[in-house]
Protein backbone atom coordinates (compact mmCIF):
# COMPACT_ATOMS: atom_id res chain seq x y z
CA UNK A 1 0.00 0.00 0.00
CA UNK A 2 2.69 2.56 0.81
CA UNK A 3 4.27 1.55 -2.52
CA UNK A 4 1.03 2.52 -4.28
CA UNK A 5 0.86 5.77 -2.37
CA UNK A 6 4.42 6.60 -3.33
CA UNK A 7 3.71 5.97 -7.01
CA UNK A 8 0.56 8.04 -6.83
CA UNK A 9 2.54 10.85 -5.29
CA UNK A 10 5.13 10.56 -8.03
CA UNK A 11 2.51 10.79 -10.76
CA UNK A 12 0.94 13.79 -9.03
CA UNK A 13 4.25 15.58 -8.78
CA UNK A 14 4.99 15.01 -12.48
CA UNK A 15 1.54 16.29 -13.40
CA UNK A 16 2.14 19.24 -11.08
CA UNK A 17 5.33 20.16 -12.89
CA UNK A 18 3.61 19.89 -16.28
CA UNK A 19 0.86 22.16 -14.99
CA UNK A 20 3.39 24.65 -13.65
CA UNK A 21 5.20 24.58 -16.99
CA UNK A 22 1.91 25.24 -18.80
CA UNK A 23 1.07 28.13 -16.48
CA UNK A 24 4.51 29.70 -16.80
CA UNK A 25 4.13 29.58 -20.60
CA UNK A 26 0.57 30.96 -20.52
CA UNK A 27 1.67 33.78 -18.25
CA UNK A 28 4.25 34.75 -20.85
CA UNK A 29 7.21 34.35 -18.53
CA UNK A 30 9.26 32.48 -21.15
CA UNK A 31 9.86 32.86 -24.84
CA UNK A 32 7.37 30.44 -26.40
CA UNK A 33 9.53 29.91 -29.47
CA UNK A 34 12.23 28.50 -27.21
CA UNK A 35 10.09 26.68 -24.69
CA UNK A 36 6.60 25.88 -25.96
CA UNK A 37 3.99 24.83 -23.43
CA UNK A 38 3.10 21.15 -22.96
CA UNK A 39 -0.24 21.78 -24.69
CA UNK A 40 1.67 22.99 -27.75
CA UNK A 41 4.10 20.08 -27.73
CA UNK A 42 1.37 17.45 -27.28
CA UNK A 43 -0.13 17.93 -30.80
CA UNK A 44 3.35 17.69 -32.34
CA UNK A 45 3.96 14.52 -30.36
CA UNK A 46 0.59 13.14 -31.40
CA UNK A 47 1.31 13.89 -35.05
CA UNK A 48 4.56 11.93 -34.89
CA UNK A 49 2.97 9.02 -33.03
CA UNK A 50 -0.25 8.82 -35.06
CA UNK A 51 1.43 9.01 -38.45
CA UNK A 52 3.76 6.20 -37.45
CA UNK A 53 6.74 8.26 -38.56
CA UNK A 54 8.44 7.51 -35.26
CA UNK A 55 8.88 3.86 -36.16
CA UNK A 56 11.79 4.12 -38.58
CA UNK A 57 14.11 6.38 -36.53
CA UNK A 58 13.21 4.55 -33.33
CA UNK A 59 13.90 1.20 -34.94
CA UNK A 60 17.24 2.41 -36.27
CA UNK A 61 18.39 3.81 -32.95
CA UNK A 62 17.24 0.80 -30.94
CA UNK A 63 18.69 -1.60 -33.50
CA UNK A 64 22.16 -0.07 -33.31
CA UNK A 65 21.94 0.04 -29.54
CA UNK A 66 20.84 -3.57 -29.10
CA UNK A 67 23.39 -5.05 -31.51
CA UNK A 68 26.29 -3.14 -29.96
CA UNK A 69 25.03 -3.79 -26.45
CA UNK A 70 24.69 -7.52 -27.02
CA UNK A 71 28.21 -7.73 -28.42
CA UNK A 72 29.52 -5.80 -25.42
CA UNK A 73 27.69 -7.96 -22.89
CA UNK A 74 28.83 -11.24 -24.39
CA UNK A 75 32.42 -10.09 -24.81
CA UNK A 76 32.50 -8.38 -21.42
CA UNK A 77 31.23 -11.40 -19.49
CA UNK A 78 33.48 -13.78 -21.41
CA UNK A 79 36.60 -11.66 -20.92
CA UNK A 80 35.72 -10.96 -17.30
CA UNK A 81 35.32 -14.68 -16.56
CA UNK A 82 38.56 -15.55 -18.34
CA UNK A 83 40.51 -12.81 -16.59
CA UNK A 84 38.94 -13.67 -13.25
CA UNK A 85 39.67 -17.37 -13.49
CA UNK A 86 43.10 -17.37 -15.09
CA UNK A 87 45.96 -15.49 -13.58
CA UNK A 88 47.87 -15.69 -16.85
CA UNK A 89 45.15 -13.91 -18.75
CA UNK A 90 44.72 -11.42 -15.94
CA UNK A 91 48.39 -10.48 -16.10
CA UNK A 92 48.24 -10.29 -19.87
CA UNK A 93 45.09 -8.26 -20.34
CA UNK A 94 44.68 -6.15 -17.21
CA UNK A 95 47.26 -3.50 -18.23
CA UNK A 96 45.62 -3.17 -21.65
CA UNK A 97 42.20 -2.73 -20.04
CA UNK A 98 43.65 -0.10 -17.69
CA UNK A 99 45.10 1.79 -20.66
CA UNK A 100 41.94 1.79 -22.79
CA UNK A 101 39.41 2.29 -20.00
CA UNK A 102 40.20 5.93 -19.09
CA UNK A 103 39.76 7.10 -22.70
CA UNK A 104 36.46 8.99 -22.77
CA UNK A 105 34.72 6.91 -25.42
CA UNK A 106 32.96 9.84 -27.15
CA UNK A 107 36.42 11.16 -28.03
CA UNK A 108 36.86 8.12 -30.26
CA UNK A 109 33.88 8.95 -32.46
CA UNK A 110 35.89 11.16 -34.86
CA UNK A 111 38.52 8.44 -35.27
CA UNK A 112 35.82 5.81 -35.85
CA UNK A 113 34.12 8.02 -38.43
CA UNK A 114 37.39 8.28 -40.30
CA UNK A 115 37.74 4.51 -40.49
CA UNK A 116 34.21 3.20 -40.57
CA UNK A 117 32.28 6.09 -42.08
CA UNK A 118 28.97 7.26 -40.73
CA UNK A 119 27.05 4.04 -41.19
CA UNK A 120 25.83 1.32 -38.90
CA UNK A 121 29.29 -0.16 -38.35
CA UNK A 122 30.58 2.97 -36.68
CA UNK A 123 27.61 3.28 -34.35
CA UNK A 124 27.60 -0.38 -33.36
CA UNK A 125 31.34 -0.24 -32.69
CA UNK A 126 30.99 2.86 -30.53
CA UNK A 127 28.12 1.39 -28.50
CA UNK A 128 29.99 -1.88 -28.04
CA UNK A 129 33.17 -0.09 -27.01
CA UNK A 130 31.42 2.10 -24.46
CA UNK A 131 29.31 -0.71 -23.05
CA UNK A 132 32.11 -3.25 -22.85
CA UNK A 133 34.10 -1.89 -19.93
CA UNK A 134 31.42 -1.62 -17.21
CA UNK A 135 30.39 -5.23 -17.91
CA UNK A 136 33.98 -6.43 -18.04
CA UNK A 137 35.08 -4.69 -14.84
CA UNK A 138 32.00 -5.76 -12.89
CA UNK A 139 32.24 -9.35 -14.06
CA UNK A 140 35.88 -9.41 -13.05
CA UNK A 141 35.09 -8.02 -9.60
CA UNK A 142 32.18 -10.42 -9.23
CA UNK A 143 34.35 -13.43 -10.06
CA UNK A 144 37.08 -12.26 -7.71
CA UNK A 145 34.55 -11.75 -4.94
CA UNK A 146 33.21 -15.31 -5.04
CA UNK A 147 33.31 -16.91 -1.61
CA UNK A 148 36.50 -19.07 -1.48
CA UNK A 149 34.61 -21.65 0.57
CA UNK A 150 32.31 -22.25 -2.40
CA UNK A 151 35.27 -22.81 -4.68
CA UNK A 152 36.94 -25.13 -2.20
CA UNK A 153 33.69 -27.07 -1.88
CA UNK A 154 33.42 -27.40 -5.64
CA UNK A 155 36.96 -28.72 -5.76
CA UNK A 156 36.24 -31.18 -2.96
CA UNK A 157 33.22 -32.47 -4.84
CA UNK A 158 35.37 -32.90 -7.91
CA UNK A 159 33.67 -30.37 -10.15
CA UNK A 160 35.44 -29.80 -13.43
CA UNK A 161 36.67 -26.33 -14.20
CA UNK A 162 33.83 -25.72 -16.63
CA UNK A 163 31.27 -26.98 -14.14
CA UNK A 164 32.71 -24.75 -11.43
CA UNK A 165 32.34 -21.75 -13.67
CA UNK A 166 28.84 -22.62 -14.80
CA UNK A 167 27.39 -23.70 -11.47
CA UNK A 168 29.33 -21.68 -8.90
CA UNK A 169 31.14 -18.68 -10.31
CA UNK A 170 28.55 -17.49 -12.80
CA UNK A 171 25.54 -17.53 -10.43
CA UNK A 172 27.56 -16.02 -7.59
CA UNK A 173 28.80 -13.13 -9.69
CA UNK A 174 25.52 -12.59 -11.55
CA UNK A 175 24.38 -9.65 -9.38
CA UNK A 176 27.64 -7.82 -10.11
CA UNK A 177 27.42 -8.68 -13.81
CA UNK A 178 23.90 -7.28 -13.98
CA UNK A 179 24.97 -4.09 -12.23
CA UNK A 180 27.60 -3.66 -14.90
CA UNK A 181 25.08 -4.37 -17.64
CA UNK A 182 22.75 -1.73 -16.27
CA UNK A 183 25.47 0.93 -16.36
CA UNK A 184 26.38 -0.25 -19.85
CA UNK A 185 22.84 0.07 -21.12
CA UNK A 186 22.59 3.74 -20.25
CA UNK A 187 26.14 4.34 -21.51
CA UNK A 188 25.24 2.62 -24.78
CA UNK A 189 22.13 4.75 -25.20
CA UNK A 190 24.18 7.91 -24.62
CA UNK A 191 26.73 6.84 -27.22
CA UNK A 192 24.23 5.86 -29.89
CA UNK A 193 22.40 9.19 -29.55
CA UNK A 194 25.67 11.10 -29.61
CA UNK A 195 26.98 9.19 -32.63
CA UNK A 196 23.75 9.96 -34.46
CA UNK A 197 24.07 13.63 -33.58
CA UNK A 198 27.67 13.92 -34.73
CA UNK A 199 27.76 11.67 -37.73
CA UNK A 200 24.57 10.26 -39.16
CA UNK A 201 21.66 11.01 -41.41
CA UNK A 202 19.07 9.12 -39.44
CA UNK A 203 18.05 8.06 -35.98
CA UNK A 204 16.58 9.92 -33.05
CA UNK A 205 19.79 11.72 -32.13
CA UNK A 206 20.16 13.08 -35.65
CA UNK A 207 16.53 14.22 -35.68
CA UNK A 208 16.74 16.10 -32.39
CA UNK A 209 19.83 18.07 -33.39
CA UNK A 210 18.55 18.60 -36.93
CA UNK A 211 15.20 19.93 -35.68
CA UNK A 212 16.99 22.26 -33.28
CA UNK A 213 19.20 23.63 -36.04
CA UNK A 214 16.19 24.25 -38.26
CA UNK A 215 14.34 25.83 -35.33
CA UNK A 216 11.45 23.35 -35.38
CA UNK A 217 11.25 23.52 -31.63
CA UNK A 218 7.96 21.71 -31.00
CA UNK A 219 8.79 18.49 -32.85
CA UNK A 220 12.22 18.62 -31.20
CA UNK A 221 10.64 18.51 -27.74
CA UNK A 222 8.28 15.80 -28.91
CA UNK A 223 11.22 13.65 -29.96
CA UNK A 224 12.98 14.31 -26.65
CA UNK A 225 9.83 13.11 -24.88
CA UNK A 226 9.87 9.96 -27.02
CA UNK A 227 13.52 9.41 -26.15
CA UNK A 228 12.82 9.85 -22.44
CA UNK A 229 10.07 7.24 -22.77
CA UNK A 230 12.51 4.89 -24.50
CA UNK A 231 14.98 5.34 -21.65
CA UNK A 232 12.25 4.71 -19.11
CA UNK A 233 10.98 1.56 -20.85
CA UNK A 234 14.49 0.16 -21.23
CA UNK A 235 15.05 0.78 -17.53
CA UNK A 236 11.84 -0.97 -16.52
CA UNK A 237 12.56 -3.93 -18.82
CA UNK A 238 16.02 -4.25 -17.33
CA UNK A 239 14.63 -4.23 -13.82
CA UNK A 240 12.20 -7.00 -14.75
CA UNK A 241 15.01 -9.11 -16.16
CA UNK A 242 17.06 -8.42 -13.05
CA UNK A 243 14.24 -9.50 -10.75
CA UNK A 244 13.86 -12.72 -12.71
CA UNK A 245 17.57 -13.46 -12.90
CA UNK A 246 18.54 -12.73 -9.31
CA UNK A 247 15.37 -13.01 -7.25
CA UNK A 248 17.45 -13.64 -4.14
CA UNK A 249 19.01 -10.21 -4.21
CA UNK A 250 17.47 -7.79 -1.76
CA UNK A 251 16.37 -4.53 -3.31
Amino acid sequence: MPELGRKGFGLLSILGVLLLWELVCRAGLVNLSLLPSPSQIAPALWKILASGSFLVPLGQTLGMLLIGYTIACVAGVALGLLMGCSEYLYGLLEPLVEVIRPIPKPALIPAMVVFLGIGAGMKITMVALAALFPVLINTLQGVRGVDPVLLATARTLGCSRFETIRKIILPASLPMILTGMRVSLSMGLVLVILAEMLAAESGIGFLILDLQRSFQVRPMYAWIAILAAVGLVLNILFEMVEDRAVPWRAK
Partner: protein
Amino acid sequence: MSIAASLTSGELTVKSPVRRKLFGDLARTRLSGAILIALLLLLWEVSAARGWIVSDNWPRFSAVLVAAYRGLLSGELAEILGSTLYRMLAGYAAGCILGVLFGLVLGSNRVLDWIIRPLIEIQRTLPSPAIIPPLILFLGVDDTLKIFIIMLAVFPPVFVNTYGGVRGLDETLLLTAKTFGLSRFDTLRKIVLPATLPAMTAGMRIALSLALIMAVIGEMISGASGVGNYLMSMQYAMRADSMYAAVICLAASGYILNRVFLRLERAALHWHHSMQAE
Protein backbone atom coordinates in the same frame (compact mmCIF):
# COMPACT_ATOMS: atom_id res chain seq x y z
CA MET B 1 43.45 -10.71 -4.90
CA SER B 2 43.96 -13.63 -2.58
CA ILE B 3 40.71 -15.15 -3.76
CA ALA B 4 41.83 -15.30 -7.36
CA ALA B 5 45.11 -16.71 -6.22
CA SER B 6 43.40 -19.44 -4.27
CA LEU B 7 41.23 -20.11 -7.28
CA THR B 8 44.13 -20.97 -9.51
CA SER B 9 47.07 -21.77 -7.29
CA GLY B 10 45.78 -25.21 -6.40
CA GLU B 11 45.41 -26.15 -10.02
CA LEU B 12 48.71 -24.61 -10.93
CA THR B 13 50.62 -26.86 -8.57
CA VAL B 14 48.90 -29.83 -10.14
CA LYS B 15 49.13 -28.75 -13.73
CA SER B 16 52.27 -26.81 -14.38
CA PRO B 17 55.40 -28.85 -14.95
CA VAL B 18 58.63 -27.56 -13.49
CA ARG B 19 60.18 -26.60 -16.81
CA ARG B 20 57.37 -24.15 -17.43
CA LYS B 21 57.87 -22.46 -14.08
CA LEU B 22 60.03 -19.65 -15.36
CA PHE B 23 57.64 -18.84 -18.17
CA GLY B 24 54.72 -19.21 -15.80
CA ASP B 25 56.11 -16.70 -13.32
CA LEU B 26 56.64 -14.23 -16.11
CA ALA B 27 53.17 -14.73 -17.53
CA ARG B 28 51.45 -14.38 -14.20
CA THR B 29 52.77 -10.88 -13.54
CA ARG B 30 51.62 -7.74 -15.25
CA LEU B 31 54.89 -7.74 -17.13
CA SER B 32 53.28 -9.87 -19.83
CA GLY B 33 50.56 -7.26 -20.14
CA ALA B 34 53.09 -4.48 -20.49
CA ILE B 35 54.85 -6.47 -23.20
CA LEU B 36 51.53 -6.98 -25.00
CA ILE B 37 50.89 -3.21 -25.01
CA ALA B 38 54.41 -2.55 -26.26
CA LEU B 39 53.93 -5.09 -29.05
CA LEU B 40 50.62 -3.55 -30.09
CA LEU B 41 52.17 -0.09 -30.22
CA LEU B 42 55.11 -1.48 -32.19
CA LEU B 43 52.65 -3.06 -34.60
CA TRP B 44 50.94 0.31 -34.99
CA GLU B 45 54.29 2.02 -35.66
CA VAL B 46 55.50 -0.58 -38.12
CA SER B 47 52.21 -0.92 -39.97
CA ALA B 48 52.19 2.81 -40.62
CA ALA B 49 55.90 3.10 -41.38
CA ARG B 50 55.99 0.14 -43.75
CA GLY B 51 52.76 1.14 -45.43
CA TRP B 52 50.80 -1.98 -44.51
CA ILE B 53 47.93 0.33 -43.87
CA VAL B 54 48.11 3.15 -46.35
CA SER B 55 45.90 5.93 -45.10
CA ASP B 56 46.21 9.54 -44.09
CA ASN B 57 44.24 8.55 -41.03
CA TRP B 58 46.77 6.01 -39.84
CA PRO B 59 49.78 8.04 -38.72
CA ARG B 60 52.77 6.45 -37.00
CA PHE B 61 52.47 6.17 -33.27
CA SER B 62 55.67 8.17 -32.94
CA ALA B 63 54.10 10.94 -35.04
CA VAL B 64 51.18 11.04 -32.62
CA LEU B 65 53.56 11.34 -29.69
CA VAL B 66 55.43 14.13 -31.45
CA ALA B 67 52.13 15.90 -32.14
CA ALA B 68 51.14 15.57 -28.49
CA TYR B 69 54.54 16.84 -27.33
CA ARG B 70 54.50 19.81 -29.73
CA GLY B 71 50.89 20.63 -28.94
CA LEU B 72 51.51 20.64 -25.22
CA LEU B 73 54.78 22.52 -25.53
CA SER B 74 53.53 25.20 -27.91
CA GLY B 75 50.56 25.64 -25.62
CA GLU B 76 47.93 25.11 -28.31
CA LEU B 77 46.77 21.73 -27.09
CA ALA B 78 47.59 22.57 -23.48
CA GLU B 79 45.34 25.61 -23.56
CA ILE B 80 42.45 23.69 -25.14
CA LEU B 81 42.85 20.85 -22.67
CA GLY B 82 43.02 23.31 -19.81
CA SER B 83 39.77 25.00 -20.80
CA THR B 84 38.04 21.61 -21.01
CA LEU B 85 39.34 20.56 -17.61
CA TYR B 86 38.39 23.87 -16.07
CA ARG B 87 34.77 23.53 -17.23
CA MET B 88 34.73 19.90 -16.22
CA LEU B 89 35.84 20.67 -12.67
CA ALA B 90 33.42 23.59 -12.34
CA GLY B 91 30.49 21.43 -13.47
CA TYR B 92 31.72 18.58 -11.33
CA ALA B 93 31.88 20.72 -8.21
CA ALA B 94 28.39 22.14 -8.84
CA GLY B 95 26.94 18.68 -9.51
CA CYS B 96 28.54 17.20 -6.39
CA ILE B 97 27.26 19.99 -4.15
CA LEU B 98 23.73 19.69 -5.53
CA GLY B 99 23.81 15.90 -5.36
CA VAL B 100 24.90 15.89 -1.73
CA LEU B 101 22.35 18.56 -0.77
CA PHE B 102 19.43 16.80 -2.45
CA GLY B 103 20.59 13.43 -1.15
CA LEU B 104 20.71 14.71 2.43
CA VAL B 105 17.38 16.51 2.25
CA LEU B 106 15.40 13.85 0.35
CA GLY B 107 17.00 11.10 2.40
CA SER B 108 15.71 12.56 5.63
CA ASN B 109 12.43 14.17 4.59
CA ARG B 110 9.70 11.77 3.48
CA VAL B 111 7.35 14.32 1.88
CA LEU B 112 10.00 16.12 -0.15
CA ASP B 113 11.33 12.72 -1.15
CA TRP B 114 7.96 11.68 -2.58
CA ILE B 115 7.52 14.95 -4.43
CA ILE B 116 10.97 15.51 -5.91
CA ARG B 117 12.40 12.06 -6.52
CA PRO B 118 10.05 11.11 -9.39
CA LEU B 119 11.26 14.20 -11.25
CA ILE B 120 14.88 13.23 -10.70
CA GLU B 121 14.12 9.71 -11.91
CA ILE B 122 12.68 11.11 -15.14
CA GLN B 123 15.69 13.34 -15.71
CA ARG B 124 17.92 10.32 -15.20
CA THR B 125 16.25 8.24 -17.88
CA LEU B 126 16.83 10.82 -20.59
CA PRO B 127 20.17 10.18 -22.31
CA SER B 128 22.22 13.27 -21.58
CA PRO B 129 23.20 14.28 -25.16
CA ALA B 130 19.50 14.79 -25.88
CA ILE B 131 19.25 17.65 -23.38
CA ILE B 132 21.95 19.63 -25.15
CA PRO B 133 20.04 20.86 -28.25
CA PRO B 134 17.23 22.55 -26.29
CA LEU B 135 19.70 23.93 -23.77
CA ILE B 136 21.67 25.53 -26.61
CA LEU B 137 18.55 27.56 -27.35
CA PHE B 138 18.56 28.96 -23.83
CA LEU B 139 22.18 29.10 -22.82
CA GLY B 140 24.00 29.54 -26.11
CA VAL B 141 27.18 27.57 -26.75
CA ASP B 142 29.42 29.18 -24.16
CA ASP B 143 30.84 27.96 -20.88
CA THR B 144 27.48 28.25 -19.11
CA LEU B 145 25.97 25.53 -21.30
CA LYS B 146 28.92 23.19 -20.98
CA ILE B 147 29.24 23.57 -17.22
CA PHE B 148 25.49 23.13 -16.85
CA ILE B 149 25.32 19.84 -18.75
CA ILE B 150 28.32 18.49 -16.85
CA MET B 151 26.49 19.37 -13.65
CA LEU B 152 23.39 17.53 -14.88
CA ALA B 153 25.43 14.40 -15.58
CA VAL B 154 27.32 14.53 -12.28
CA PHE B 155 24.22 15.05 -10.15
CA PRO B 156 22.49 11.62 -10.42
CA PRO B 157 25.25 9.29 -9.18
CA VAL B 158 26.19 11.63 -6.33
CA PHE B 159 22.55 12.06 -5.38
CA VAL B 160 21.67 8.35 -5.56
CA ASN B 161 24.64 7.34 -3.43
CA THR B 162 24.18 10.08 -0.83
CA TYR B 163 20.48 9.31 -0.65
CA GLY B 164 21.19 5.61 -0.21
CA GLY B 165 23.73 6.40 2.46
CA VAL B 166 21.28 8.52 4.44
CA ARG B 167 18.51 5.95 4.11
CA GLY B 168 20.85 3.17 5.20
CA LEU B 169 21.94 5.07 8.28
CA ASP B 170 22.05 3.03 11.48
CA GLU B 171 18.97 3.93 13.51
CA THR B 172 20.89 3.51 16.75
CA LEU B 173 23.25 6.32 15.81
CA LEU B 174 20.36 8.73 15.35
CA LEU B 175 18.66 7.64 18.56
CA THR B 176 21.92 8.03 20.44
CA ALA B 177 22.29 11.53 19.05
CA LYS B 178 18.79 12.30 20.21
CA THR B 179 19.49 10.90 23.67
CA PHE B 180 22.49 13.15 24.01
CA GLY B 181 20.34 16.08 22.97
CA LEU B 182 22.31 16.93 19.84
CA SER B 183 20.80 19.74 17.79
CA ARG B 184 19.70 18.98 14.23
CA PHE B 185 22.74 20.71 12.82
CA ASP B 186 25.12 18.87 15.14
CA THR B 187 23.49 15.54 14.26
CA LEU B 188 24.01 16.32 10.62
CA ARG B 189 27.59 17.41 11.06
CA LYS B 190 28.75 14.81 13.55
CA ILE B 191 26.64 11.77 12.69
CA VAL B 192 25.01 11.88 9.28
CA LEU B 193 27.85 13.38 7.24
CA PRO B 194 30.63 11.10 8.50
CA ALA B 195 28.43 8.02 8.26
CA THR B 196 27.37 8.73 4.67
CA LEU B 197 30.78 9.95 3.49
CA PRO B 198 31.86 6.57 2.06
CA ALA B 199 28.67 6.37 -0.01
CA MET B 200 29.07 9.98 -1.16
CA THR B 201 32.63 9.51 -2.34
CA ALA B 202 31.62 6.31 -4.14
CA GLY B 203 29.11 8.35 -6.11
CA MET B 204 31.60 11.13 -6.72
CA ARG B 205 34.12 8.65 -8.08
CA ILE B 206 31.64 7.40 -10.68
CA ALA B 207 30.68 10.99 -11.46
CA LEU B 208 34.29 12.01 -12.10
CA SER B 209 34.64 9.95 -15.26
CA LEU B 210 31.12 10.95 -16.33
CA ALA B 211 32.12 14.60 -15.98
CA LEU B 212 35.01 14.21 -18.40
CA ILE B 213 32.81 12.31 -20.84
CA MET B 214 30.13 14.99 -20.70
CA ALA B 215 32.68 17.76 -21.08
CA VAL B 216 33.80 16.18 -24.35
CA ILE B 217 30.25 15.44 -25.51
CA GLY B 218 29.12 19.01 -24.87
CA GLU B 219 32.05 20.42 -26.80
CA MET B 220 31.49 18.04 -29.69
CA ILE B 221 27.83 18.95 -30.10
CA SER B 222 27.97 22.66 -29.42
CA GLY B 223 31.40 23.25 -30.89
CA ALA B 224 33.08 26.57 -30.14
CA SER B 225 35.86 25.40 -27.82
CA GLY B 226 37.62 22.66 -25.92
CA VAL B 227 39.08 19.27 -26.74
CA GLY B 228 35.80 17.90 -28.10
CA ASN B 229 35.64 20.67 -30.65
CA TYR B 230 39.37 20.27 -31.40
CA LEU B 231 38.83 16.57 -32.12
CA MET B 232 36.04 17.31 -34.56
CA SER B 233 37.96 20.01 -36.39
CA MET B 234 41.10 17.86 -36.60
CA GLN B 235 38.96 15.13 -38.12
CA TYR B 236 37.63 17.52 -40.78
CA ALA B 237 41.12 18.92 -41.36
CA MET B 238 42.45 15.36 -41.81
CA ARG B 239 45.15 15.94 -39.19
CA ALA B 240 44.97 12.49 -37.74
CA ASP B 241 48.13 12.76 -35.65
CA SER B 242 46.78 15.80 -33.76
CA MET B 243 43.44 14.05 -33.34
CA TYR B 244 44.99 10.98 -31.72
CA ALA B 245 47.29 13.20 -29.67
CA ALA B 246 44.23 14.92 -28.20
CA VAL B 247 42.63 11.56 -27.39
CA ILE B 248 45.77 10.43 -25.61
CA CYS B 249 45.96 13.67 -23.59
CA LEU B 250 42.31 13.28 -22.61
CA ALA B 251 42.82 9.71 -21.48
CA ALA B 252 45.91 10.73 -19.50
CA SER B 253 44.01 13.55 -17.78
CA GLY B 254 41.18 11.16 -16.93
CA TYR B 255 43.64 8.67 -15.51
CA ILE B 256 45.46 11.28 -13.45
CA LEU B 257 42.24 12.79 -12.12
CA ASN B 258 41.06 9.36 -11.06
CA ARG B 259 44.36 8.70 -9.29
CA VAL B 260 44.20 12.03 -7.46
CA PHE B 261 40.62 11.28 -6.45
CA LEU B 262 41.54 7.87 -5.05
CA ARG B 263 44.38 9.45 -3.07
CA LEU B 264 42.05 12.09 -1.61
CA GLU B 265 39.36 9.51 -0.91
CA ARG B 266 41.78 7.33 0.98
CA ALA B 267 42.96 10.29 3.02
CA ALA B 268 39.40 11.32 3.84
CA LEU B 269 38.23 7.83 4.67
CA HIS B 270 41.24 6.28 6.36
CA TRP B 271 39.25 5.90 9.58
CA HIS B 272 36.52 4.07 7.67
CA HIS B 273 38.86 1.64 5.95
CA SER B 274 40.72 0.93 9.16
CA MET B 275 37.37 0.23 10.80
CA GLN B 276 36.43 -2.18 8.05
CA ALA B 277 39.74 -3.96 8.16
CA GLU B 278 39.28 -4.92 11.81
